[in-house]
């Protein structure tokens, strides 16, 4: 019971694409794939980010510059920069043993999926890694994934500038149809994850999704991240949950809630 931020120094900054950077911290965290941390920029704000990789000695955060906090983060934090981290929080993905799994990633979702792939392969799994983006320049982590043994990379872009043209869920559907996929894990835009849930339900394949909501405490207290229908805080009962559970969320892939709890469309 202790979640005061621990101040850490940034050991390395990697530019992933024009709007996404990965920050490396030389410190153990003990996070499972799918868990997240709260990142504190002193005098600015605190926001949740998924763990993109983690072992005994280091962990990574992959941050997309989308608004005031994340843009300021990109601007201000260089190597040696000090920031606070607390967590890890929430439930992670199930790491199966010796199975054939498909990972479906959209946007910065590729980062936690990379960590999951890493752990799954260590556990003897065969991994189909499906990444999607609007175009080639926005693809994330594909270089790293390509090099992984036991992992097959599948790419889809909306404009066809790399890999298959169209939604990455189409690739998922084909892989499942081909047979042999034991389980699907996905992280990315809710509408994509909802599509994957529908595919998996029809095919009778289990799926785990990561449900993001506006978070403050990260520990099931403030209630800001409670999803409708279930009523539970996803910082604690999620973010990763089964497709079955996610299906009980009212407004899934339709609305979320802002910092004061007002409904906002996705």
């Amino acid at each position, binding site marked *: 019971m202790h979640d*005061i931020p621990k*101040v850490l120094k940034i050991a390395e900054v990697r530019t992933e694409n024009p709007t996404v950077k990965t920050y490396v911290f030389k410190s153990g965290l003990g996070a499972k794939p799918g868990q997240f941390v*709260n990142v504190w920029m002193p005098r600015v*704000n605190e926001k949740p980010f998924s763990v993109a990789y983690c072992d005994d000695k280091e962990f990574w955060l992959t941050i997309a510059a989308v608004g005031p906090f994340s843009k300021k983060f990109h601007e201000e934090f260089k190597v040696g920069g000090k920031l606070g981290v607390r967590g890890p929080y929430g439930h992670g993905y199930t790491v199966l043993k010796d199975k054939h799994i498909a990972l479906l990633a959209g946007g910065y979702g590729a980062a936690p999926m990379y960590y999951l792939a890493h752990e799954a392969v260590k556990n003897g799994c065969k991994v189909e890694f499906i990444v999607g983006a609007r175009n080639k320049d926005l693809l994330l982590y594909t270089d790293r994934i390509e090099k992984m043994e036991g992992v097959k990379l599948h790419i889809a872009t909306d404009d066809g500038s790399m890999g298959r043209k169209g939604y990455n869920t189409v690739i998922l559907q084909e892989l499942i149809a081909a047979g042999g996929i034991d389980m699907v894990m996905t992280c990315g835009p809710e509408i994509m994850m909802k599509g994957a849930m529908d595919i998996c339900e029809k095919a009778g394949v289990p799926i785990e999704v990561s449900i993001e909501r506006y978070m403050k405490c990260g520990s*099931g207290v403030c*209630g800001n991240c409670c999803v409708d229908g279930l*009523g*539970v805080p996803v910082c604690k009962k999620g973010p990763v949950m089964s497709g079955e559970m996610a299906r009980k969320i009212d407004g899934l892939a339709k609305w979320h809630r802002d910092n004061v709890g007002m409904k906002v469309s996705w």
Partner: protein
Amino acid sequence: MNKSISFCGVSFPNPTVLASGILGVTGDSLKNVARNGAGGVTSKSVWLTRHEGHPGPVMMGTEHFYINAVGLPDGGIEKAKEELGKYLEWKERVPLIGNIVAGKISDFENIAGQMEQIGPDIIEVNISCPNVEDQFGRPFACSCPDAGAVTKIVKKVVKKIPVIIKLSPNVSNIGEIAKACEANGADGLTIANTFGPGMIIDIDTAEPILANKVGGVSGPGIRPLAVKRVWDTATAVKIPIIGMGGVLTGRDVIEFMMAGASLVGIGSGVYYRGAEIFSKVNEEIDEWMKEQGVKELSEIIGKAVKK
């Protein structure tokens, strides 16, 4: 064995109540807490119009205390209508306490009236948040005339349901403040809001950790301070009390009741034991009642005070 408590004429199946500001942001989140065994639930403080909270970090805990400066974020009364309305339609519901807040004394009239229309079982008036002092000055709960004036204005508009006032523990005369509320018609009191404010500093950056620098302190470390506030209030007024501050176990609930509380709020306890704390605490109360041969829980209210 009977754990039900009648408070201001409203029947609660057990004495545990979700404290305001914890989990209760939406109708469904209130249902979730009720399903976990709470005897009653309190909404987050509702403003007339949208109110932004503070930037983060807004809250955190250690094993000894919890500290928060959320800054009372809220979507306003229209959102409350939808969310609390949804909760009130639910058949299995337990009593709902609608908590309201305002920046000026006169503003309480409007928000109170609108909250009454939503139809909660009780209205709780928050005049004691220590985390919006920069914006609104010392809480009304720190002055007898202010506390009395807010009570009066709310009681003027709210005619059909009981009104309870949530006081601040950060005064030296809580009994006097309680009397001022009682004299102006309060039906009950909530004792109390968070302590302080307090502060935690990160020593590696030399920065206060909460974005608001200071925050209200709750959790197990302040429990003896809160119990004494309830005792002081119980010896000063006749109206019933919801006690709270650092409750983690069934024994803690009983301690507050013996100090004079009829119902007992749980807030930070959710951090320490999850939303499941309500059912756990109720089991612990059951065990104690069995062990001590207590049949009627309401009989222990104020037992230590009356001696």
